[in-house]
């Protein structure tokens, strides 16, 4: 080897000027693209699974809430004693049917009276004639 003086600038200048060469860059690009397309496909699959999971979770939560609501409502009702329940029932129930029956009965009574009067009147008329 020649014993010539090499400077720092010469070394860095040389390294700078010589760029490493990539053989067949198209092949490398294709390799990267294959891997990226695989990742993109997997991402889509995962997205569908994630959305389905979220929807199922939401439906399950709703059902659970409904069940909890029903359970609480029923348990609150069952806490009332029978006596209270019957009393409450008596207070709330409106008896409308007997009223109607009473009205009908009165009307029938009136009708019968009218018929009776009419019959008496007819008999009286015949007698007079």
């Amino acid at each position, binding site marked *: 080897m020649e014993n010539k003086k090499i400077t720092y600038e010469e*070394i*860095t200048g040389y390294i700078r000027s010589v760029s490493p060469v990539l053989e067949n860059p198209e092949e490398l690009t294709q390799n990267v693209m294959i891997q990226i397309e695989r990742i993109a496909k997997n991402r889509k699959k995962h997205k569908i699974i994630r959305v389905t999971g979220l929807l199922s979770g939401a439906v399950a939560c709703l059902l659970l809430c409904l069940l909890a609501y029903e359970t609480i409502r029923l348990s609150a009702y069952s806490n009332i004693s029978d006596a209270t329940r019957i009393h409450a029932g008596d207070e709330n129930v409106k008896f409308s049917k007997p009223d109607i029956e009473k009205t009908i009965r009165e009307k029938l009574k009136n009708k019968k009276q009218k018929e009776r009067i009419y019959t008496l009147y007819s008999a009286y008329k015949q007698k007079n004639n």
Partner: protein
Amino acid sequence: MEQEKVQKLIVCSKQGDTKAFEMLIIAFQSLVFQLSYRLLCDYDDAKDMVQEVFIKIWLQLDKYNPRYKFSTWIYKITCNMCYDRLRSMRHSPESNGISLFAIEHIAVLSDNAEISLINRELKDLILYFTDKLPAKQKIVFILSDIEELETKEIEKITGLSAGQIKSNLHLARKHIKHKINALTS
């Protein structure tokens, strides 16, 4: 490639357009390969690094801040990954013998030299001067004196302060100059 066109390609890639991302790879592949090769000094490692870097870029495209240059972001990812690799691997000392061969041929290296020879000589040369350098110093040296980036950009890439960059670069230069002196004396 123009910054506007790069930004358009990034927006398309974010929406899942793989063709747009392929254009980005074609545009920045050589940048990643050259930096990886200069840092790792191994052809296969540098090729692997190109793949890993672009996969990471694809996965983290949403995190890219358009205020910075895309090339700066690529430099940052490449440097971080190479830094991890450099820390995990130890170069074999075989390069010390070959490096003399490389230095002898600086003057006579012709344009017609084969690709593999160029890569080999470059590898030997870089390894001879920077093999013993800590990963941080090596990265700062390559970015500053080989890639000729400004200190502000190196700050963004490495996350080091201007003072840290200066001191790392000073130590790297001192080491390389010492190697040169040992070689020529």
